[in-house]
């Protein structure tokens, strides 16, 4: 449940005031309260990684990071996390994963091991476990933070958190009051947004927004790929805080269109309504309840369509036993009702049998935080997930954290998670002319991962914070392609690939001067996959993922009074199969606060080369160099 982690990973440091700012307090006595409120604090520990007690590799992308990076869409914001792989393949399509296993389009293996949540609402598709990134959009202005947890967080976060969890948290309505207008344009994109927030009463705040954009097509090996797209969206949020309670109601509606080469547009539309209630009961005890409805439709005339309606209810209770043992437990149920009209994608031979289903995914979890002494904490948790195809899967997790001193935390974790079978695994039927070529497998097993992780997080000096995690993820029952005995076709999905991915993730942040901050990130991984005995070994183990062995990034943020300058350099290693060369690229942004009400910025993306390739799938576009001028007016 995304709601727990949101509460647990508070951004305020509140800890470790042990390093010097010589005579800081003597200088401050001369300042007025207004001047105190405008002082910039050395927020190293807040920038990339707060010294929270979370025994997991968590990277937090803050609202500041997003504003300075010039990112306008969620996938571009996710490039800021050093523990994610983000590859763009068209103006609207991205392949995103954590710790490898990004799949392979020839094997129809799409990245399907991430749990993505927006304010607790799960946005991965229950049809194939992947995420339609072109259907998820939040106004960058409204994002409070994005928490990226790599590794299996299955116990607490929710279903599908096999390789990681991305939790997008939006700001409270009270924090986005007033009017906001954004207008931007560049050589590849144009956008506009309008938002207004206010208070209906002393404890009732709201905001309403509308936004739209258009991204024009990229080029690929065949010339213009004709894959431009646009998507108007609108929504609202209402926060009511009677007493200690907090009630939030939010909703969005969108309807966009994507051009397709040689075909009519693909229409994507949908909406959602979420209600969240949190009720503190005093003494560290609290109750949370969340209900949401989500509807998504993709339609392409003559090529296929699906509609998906999701109804979800989750409840969570946390309390203490005695003065030290704190327990969180919860229960939830999700009903996904979908209907697929004959074809789902531009591939005209893809069918689903049955074409409509209602899936019921239920879960029960409990987690106990047990302090062992004043500096060590043990967390044990278990999630039981009941999916419509394979019954109950247990997902245990154990984590240990040791706060060595006020500035250093060492942690270790062992967890097990599963990716439940989806309709794509069980119901798909693909024809090649008159021949039934490939089918799903009604006995498809959940894919498994057992992860062992070790990490360190801390402040290395007054202005430097760092985080390092080592991981060894062992996979089993990964999807493979098997042959029917004797007749060979139809091929069917099996579970005969297993292996491991091991590596490290590291990041650090250095506040070099008052106005200059440097951040660096690095990850390295080694994937060893093999077939289980009896496998047909079709397509080889490369089908599991086409991942870079390493990625590195260096980001510089300079903030002067009214001017800020950001540069973000990234190096993504070579992809082996299909081959994509290693590339180095640079994004940059210059921002100017003309007045307290007006911000102007100019951003350049992918500046080092006229174009470069990031991944081979679908449109396989070349990602071009582009620029964007943005104005934001607040009133």
């Amino acid at each position: 449940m995304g709601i727990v982690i949101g509460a647990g990973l508070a951004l305020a440091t509140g800890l470790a005031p042990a390093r010097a700012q010589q005579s800081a307090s003597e200088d401050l006595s001369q300042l007025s309260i207004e001047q105190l409120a405008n002082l910039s604090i050395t927020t190293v520990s807040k920038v990339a990684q707060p010294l929270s007690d979370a025994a997991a590799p968590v990277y937090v992308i803050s609202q500041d990071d997003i504003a300075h990076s010039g990112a306008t869409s969620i996938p571009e914001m996710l490039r800021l996390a050093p523990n994610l792989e983000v590859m763009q393949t068209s103006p609207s399509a991205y392949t995103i994963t954590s710790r490898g296993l990004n799949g392979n389009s020839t094997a129809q293996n799409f990245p399907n091991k991430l749990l993505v949540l927006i304010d607790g609402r799960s946005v991965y598709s229950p049809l194939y476990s992947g995420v339609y990134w072109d259907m998820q959009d939040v106004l960058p202005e409204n994002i409070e933070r994005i928490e990226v947890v790599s590794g299996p967080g299955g116990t607490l976060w929710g279903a599908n958190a096999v390789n990681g969890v991305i939790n997008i948290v939006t700001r409270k309505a009270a924090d986005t009051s007033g009017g906001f207008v954004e207008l931007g344009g560049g050589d590849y994109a144009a956008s506009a947004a309008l938002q207004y927030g206010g208070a209906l009463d002393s404890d009732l705040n709201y905001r309403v927004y509308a936004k739209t954009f258009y991204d024009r097509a990229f080029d690929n090996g065949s010339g213009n790929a004709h894959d431009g797209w646009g998507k108007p969206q609108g929504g609202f949020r209402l926060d009511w805080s009677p007493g200690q309670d907090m009630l939030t109601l939010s909703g969005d509606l969108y309807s966009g269109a994507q051009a397709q080469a040689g075909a009519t547009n693909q229409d994507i539309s949908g909406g959602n309504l979420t209600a969240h209630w949190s009720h503190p009961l005093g003494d560290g005890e609290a109750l949370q309840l969340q209900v949401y409805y989500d509807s998504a439709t993709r339609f392409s005339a003559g090529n296929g369509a699906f509609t998906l309606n999701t109804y979800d209810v989750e409840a969570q209770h946390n309390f203490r036993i005695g003065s030290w043992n704190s327990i969180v437990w919860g229960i939830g149920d999700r009903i996904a009702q979908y209907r697929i009209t004959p074809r789902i994608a531009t591939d005209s031979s893809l069918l689903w049998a049955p074409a409509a289903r209602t899936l019921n995914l239920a879960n029960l979890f409990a987690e106990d935080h047990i302090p062992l002494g004043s500096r060590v904490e043990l967390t044990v948790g278990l999630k039981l997930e009941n999916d419509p195809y394979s019954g109950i899967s247990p997902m245990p997790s154990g984590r240990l954290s040791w706060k060595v001193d006020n500035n250093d935390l060492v942690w270790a974790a062992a967890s097990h998670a599963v990716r439940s079978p989806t309709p794509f695994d069980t119901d798909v039927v693909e024809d090649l002319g008159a021949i039934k070529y490939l089918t799903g497998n009604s006995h498809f097993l959940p894919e498994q991962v057992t992860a062992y992780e070790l990490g360190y997080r801390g402040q290395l000096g007054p202005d430097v914070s760092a985080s390092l995690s080592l991981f060894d993820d062992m996979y089993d029952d990964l999807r493979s392609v098997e042959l029917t005995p004797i007749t060979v076709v139809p091929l069917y999905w099996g579970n005969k690939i297993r292996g491991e991915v091991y590596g490290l993730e590291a990041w650090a942040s250095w506040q070099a001067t008052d106005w200059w901050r440097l951040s660096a990130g690095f990850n390295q991984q080694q994937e060893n996959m093999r077939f289980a005995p009896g496998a047909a070994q079709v397509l080889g183990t490369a089908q599991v993922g086409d991942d870079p062995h390493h990625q590195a990034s260096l980001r510089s943020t300079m903030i002067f009074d009214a001017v800020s300058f950001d540069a973000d350099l990234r190096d993504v290693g070579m992809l082996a199969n299909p081959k994509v060369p290693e590339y180095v690229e640079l994004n940059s942004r210059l921002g100017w606060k003309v007045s307290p009400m007006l911000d102007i910025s100019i951003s350049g993306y992918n500046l080092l080369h006229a174009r470069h390739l990031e991944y081979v799938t679908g449109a396989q576009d070349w990602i071009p160099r582009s620029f964007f001028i943005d104005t934001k007016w607040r009133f």
Partner: protein
Amino acid sequence: MRTARLVCAVVLLAACVAGAVSADISLEYAIRAAYLAKFAPFIEWPDSAFATPGAAINICILGSDPFGAALDRAAASVTGGRPLLVRRLASPELASACQILYLANNEAAASLPAGLSERPVVTVSEAGGAGMIAFVVDGNHVRFDIDDDAAQHSGIHISSKLLSLAHAVKHKAAAP
């Protein structure tokens, strides 16, 4: 400071470690200490909160002290009106003798005696705590939210000037 360290080493009070080990604190906490002292001139307590017209305003800390000497220096630098006195509370029962009470953590907040919310004590906590004034970190600034409803309920009048400087204010619901 050396004497304090010796006492702490002997007595092994957990509260001593944070304050006495290092005389210098981060800017974040120095700002909070400065705020605690500077709030005092903007707050009016009922006369019943003080024993005598010259009695000091007590700024108390409940829980482990994150400020150390910085708070004492900040309190000494605010002149005019009643003097400010910094006290580190050994137990929550003494909370009602304070005029400003800083709650260092959730345990401190949970240990407050029932009925304190009726007394003229300005509670100050971190974001998410239940203090009348809560420190929040907004972007890279340390600011504060004020719950004026709770303040008025306790008989405390917070000047509108301080309310206007706050990051967010929870007002008393207007009477019909």
